[in-house]
């Protein structure tokens, strides 16, 4: 708080950068969303969003389910990691990060070779005369792909917060009569809540705008809003694509705001 002018000057390049790369694209999106093909102001395409109601709802549901599954999977892993020896922690961290070093497209593509009709799983089941099972093309496969891709983003923030929980607090809880479950409920959960909230945010936001995964692992009836947006732009239907993106942004902003409310008491989101 020394000199507000000095602060502003220091922030200036950042503000410029933000304006250039965040604000201007947003304005362009909004512009296309609220104009017709001739460039006149119009609600034509915003209104058309109603046609995609089903896809929008599906995206929300898939994202919610994928987020819930990653949370349930990641929480115990993060806890276990945070209570391990430092060397084990580093090792596990590496394992969690490893898939992220590979391109998303390649990772998803490899799942298709596992799940497809002639893929790894079905070839294996075939030995016992079972199948082939229809895995690819189901909503289960899409959610699996999402969980697989996003679970590190859930583990990392929860793990980070949990490493900050001093062991003596857990011992104090035990000393005062807490065993496993009550220790979890009264100490571990409340203290790791900020991590859980940023984990949910970091998984839910990309989940809801997922594309490609849903095309490769799913089928026509598992299309997500991200796929539609991509297709609209590919078809040079900028106005439709932009208005869908605009609605997506609103949905994401609302969910961020809800998340923020939860974390306010505990001092904000930790990313």
């Amino acid at each position, binding site marked *: 708080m020394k000199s507000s002018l000095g602060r502003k000057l220091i922030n200036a390049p950042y503000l410029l950068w933000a304006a250039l790369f965040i604000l201007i694209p947003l304005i362009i999106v909004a512009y296309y969303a609220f104009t017709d093909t001739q460039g006149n102001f119009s609600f034509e395409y915003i209104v058309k969003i109603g046609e995609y109601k089903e896809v929008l709802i599906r995206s929300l549901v898939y994202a919610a389910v994928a987020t819930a599954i990653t949370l349930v999977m990641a929480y115990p892993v993060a806890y276990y990691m945070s209570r391990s020896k430092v060397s084990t922690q580093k090792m596990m961290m590496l394992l969690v990060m490893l898939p992220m070093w590979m391109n998303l497209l390649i990772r998803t593509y490899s799942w298709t070779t596992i799940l497809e009709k002639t893929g790894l799983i079905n070839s294996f089941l075939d030995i016992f005369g079972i199948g082939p099972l229809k895995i690819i093309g189901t909503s289960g496969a899409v959610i699996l792909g999402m969980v697989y891709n996003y679970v590190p983003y859930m583990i990392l923030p929860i793990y980070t917060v949990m490493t900050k929980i001093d062991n003596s607090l857990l011992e*104090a809880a035990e000393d*005062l009569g807490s065993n496993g479950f009550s220790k979890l409920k*009264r100490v571990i959960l409340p203290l790791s809540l900020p991590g859980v909230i940023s984990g949910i945010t970091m998984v839910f936001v990309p989940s809801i705008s997922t594309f490609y995964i849903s095309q490769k692992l799913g089928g026509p009836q598992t299309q997500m809003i991200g796929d539609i947006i991509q297709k609209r732009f590919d078809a040079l239907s900028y106005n439709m694509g932009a208005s869908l993106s605009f609605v997506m942004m609103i949905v994401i902003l609302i969910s961020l705001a809800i998340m923020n409310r939860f974390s306010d008491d505990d001092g904000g989101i930790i990313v």
Partner: protein
Amino acid sequence: MKEKKIVVELKNIGISFDGEQILDDLNLEIRDGEFVTFLGPSGCGKTTTLRIIGGFTQPDTGEVIIDGKNMNGAPPYKRQVNTIFQRYALFPHLNVFENVAFGLRVNKVDSKEIEKRVTAMLESVNLSGFEKRQVHSLSGGQQQRVAIARALVNNPTILLLDEPLGALDLKLRKDMQNELKNIQQQLGITFIFVTHDQEEALSMSDTVVVMNEGRIQQIGTPEDIYNEPKNAFVADFIGESNILDGIMREDRLVEMFGHKFDCVDIGFGKNEPVDVVVRPEDIDVVEPEKGQLSGTVSSITFKGVHYEIIVDINDFKWMIQSTDSPAVGDVIGISIPPQDIHIMKKSEYSGMFGDYSTFSDEMELIGDTEITGEDET
């Protein structure tokens, strides 16, 4: 006084970490309502012993018996013991009231009852009005009292305290010493207290357990420990001592530096080599010719109540605390009353402590540069 029942018993406790023996064949009995203090240098295993009693660490060998029941393997929440941790370990997500209420809530005590007990407990540690405060906004002394309240509200029969006053300044430390002692006496709880401050240990405890390198050196009342140290380590660690080589010529007669001294100890072998302890305040300064021994004063420091005199007698530097103030270079005599000569059996610590030849270097900050200079050559 009638002997009270034994509430905690440690039998042949041993534990090692990473292949290093940390506690070795530790045996101890603690009685109901006793104030027991573990005293010893850093790293000697005090916290480890406490954690074994609390159930946070399981010993490799030996038995932990609490209230007559073998507690080996029992987790902390199954023990009638509460702990005040070295750094308090208050719950940062709970306010003062909820921190204190934690144990009661876990045990599903009725909420009206909780309200009543927590309020009363906060009042007794002078924290009324702090109920809604966040713990991180409290001073060290206040946090410490929350920690005490959080443990005591559960009516434990045994309270473990790991250097609970370590982080406090001297004034607050003294106040809290009195407060803790009062609480202990009023409630009649067994206190097992850890400190490396010998003054704290002597002034608060019924029983002091002196530890070093994972072994108990001596168990006794503060007076016993001070007046009748068992070996050179205890004599050196508790207070100031001159520790000398002697030979027990017969009962009540010990020889040091070729001079025979009357003493009160009996039961040693004839001509047995022994360690002799003489406390600095027990030595009388006399005329050289009247003294049992005599030597040259090599330094004198004013300490308020008394002077601290280092005198060189036959190449052994004695420390004397006296109200007399001879000058450096003076030849003085010393005389020691028989009851102030304490005889100890030889131990592994013989010869390691009790000579003040390096004393002036240790104490004077100016000496520091000289010491490092010597180390390098």
